[in-house]
């Protein structure tokens, strides 16, 4: 048994909405092992995106702890935080909102390599070319503006940027939810292939249980700011114990089937 890559304990976070106090995270604990995919599934407003933002330190929790690569992740600052951040990357649903809109495809990837000094400057452009090829994009795209490529191509660029710095963990928040189904399938294949090659771990967040099941070794189900069940993917789906998972299973559209009711 190897040491876990990330351990979150009793994370708490709340917002005030319309005068009411809402607990977005109500004591969330989870563990991610090196090289595995933990799927996190739940309906809108269950707190899954808040969890992603707390783990990536975009927002600070009110309580709880996160250990990442054996460091007290929430206490890290300065140079040590900058160095550790490289190992936790994030891919969002809407890649356009995640990029500087004036950037070029090649510039986005080169910036990541430069900021984290992943490779010597002299071989940087060669590494950019290798990465763009690895995510299945033609090198002709390198000079294009990030705005002028399709949504599926943009998500490949976001993945290339994330893997460029050779992270240990990538958090994918609804990363394939806005894509056409044919593009979605190819992006999932790409993610699984990259994991086999590099041993990167994924926290794969989605409301779509069928997609989560396809790529995850383990699944955690979230509702109202809590993780209500967790376990190996097939086992959890075969024997759901929470009402939200029963509902999520029932809501997966089946080809030619009878609509869920």
């Amino acid at each position, binding site marked *: 048994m190897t040491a876990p890559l990330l351990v979150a304990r009793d994370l708490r976070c709340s917002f005030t909405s*319309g005068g009411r106090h809402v607990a977005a995270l109500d004591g969330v604990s989870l563990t991610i*092992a090196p090289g*595995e*995919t933990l799927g996190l599934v739940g*309906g*809108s*407003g269950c707190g899954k995106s808040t969890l992603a933002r707390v783990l990536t330190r975009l927002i600070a929790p009110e309580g709880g702890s996160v250990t990442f690569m054996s460091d007290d992740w929430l206490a890290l600052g300065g140079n040590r935080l900058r160095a550790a951040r490289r190992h936790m990357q994030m891919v969002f649903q809407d890649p356009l909102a995640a990029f500087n809109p004036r950037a070029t495809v090649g510039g986005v990837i080169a910036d990541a390599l430069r900021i984290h000094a992943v490779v010597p400057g002299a071989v940087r452009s060669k590494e950019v070319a290798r990465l763009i090829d690895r995510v299945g994009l033609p090198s002709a795209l390198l000079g294009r503006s990030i705005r002028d490529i*399709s*949504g599926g191509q943009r998500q490949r660029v976001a993945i290339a940027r994330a893997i460029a710095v050779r992270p240990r963990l990538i958090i994918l928040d609804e990363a394939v939810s806005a894509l*056409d*189904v*044919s*593009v*979605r*399938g190819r992006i*999932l*294949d790409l993610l*699984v292939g990259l*994991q086999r090659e590099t041993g990167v771990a994924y926290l794969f967040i989605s*409301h*779509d*249980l*069928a*997609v989560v*099941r*396809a*790529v*995850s*070794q*383990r699944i955690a189900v979230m509702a109202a700011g809590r993780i209500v069940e967790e376990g*190996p*993917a*097939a086992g959890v*789906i075969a024997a759901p114990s929470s009402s939200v998972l029963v*509902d*999520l*299973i*029932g*809501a*997966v*559209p*089946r*080809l*030619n*089937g*009878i*609509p*869920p*009711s």
Partner: protein
Amino acid sequence: MTTLAAIDGLTVTYRRAPAPALSGLSLDIEAGEILAIIGESGSGKSTLARAIAGLLPEKTTIAGRLTWPGLDGAPRAGRDIGYVFQDPGSSLNPVLTIGEQVGEGARRHLGLDRRAAVAEAVRLLARVHLPEPQRIARAYPHQLSGGQRQRVAIAAAIAARPRLLIADEVTSALDVLVQAAIVDLLVELVRADGMTLVFVTHDLALASGIADRVAVMAEGRLVELGPTAEVVGAPRAVETAALVAAHIDLSSPPLVGEAS
């Protein structure tokens, strides 16, 4: 079966676009059916829906014929055709109460006075299964969730009792739980009122659960049309076969093995 609308050789080219968004499309919409229009981004499915509803922008070049044998004359937007958009956040007026905008169709098209229109709005909000319809009628769009807003948009679209309801990617912005409930609601409403439903989506599986017929579009063309079970079970067009192959559900083979 009666034909509600007959589309013959419809070609639509947007202003300054290098190529048509729809090319020579012919299709009959039968009265009372649920017709799904399926396709990926850029296939022309929303252009077709907008052309049927007469919602294409000015200066769009339209060739071909669209006739309405099932109606007495040309359809009146909002009266004969109700339209529900993908994003209810931008299709609802942020400064009108829910009651006012749902009642507007009934006021304008059914000649109800203000009080009667508000009462009708409350009845419609109850019909789309919104809890506490009296309270919601006094609320503004930003006070509701995405799923609730989409129910409001559906209530507004059916207010004038249209013959045809067009639902254009109405569940794409919603999570799967809310999606299933909205689809159930649409089916319940069109079956109860004998409405015709044109259901536009990129999700073939979602459509296959409710549609009588499926029209598959790719690159501005209709590539396959037929009864749902035939199109899904034995696709003839390569584009349809690709959509079937890309479908992922709980019986699809996982892409990864479980941790040892």
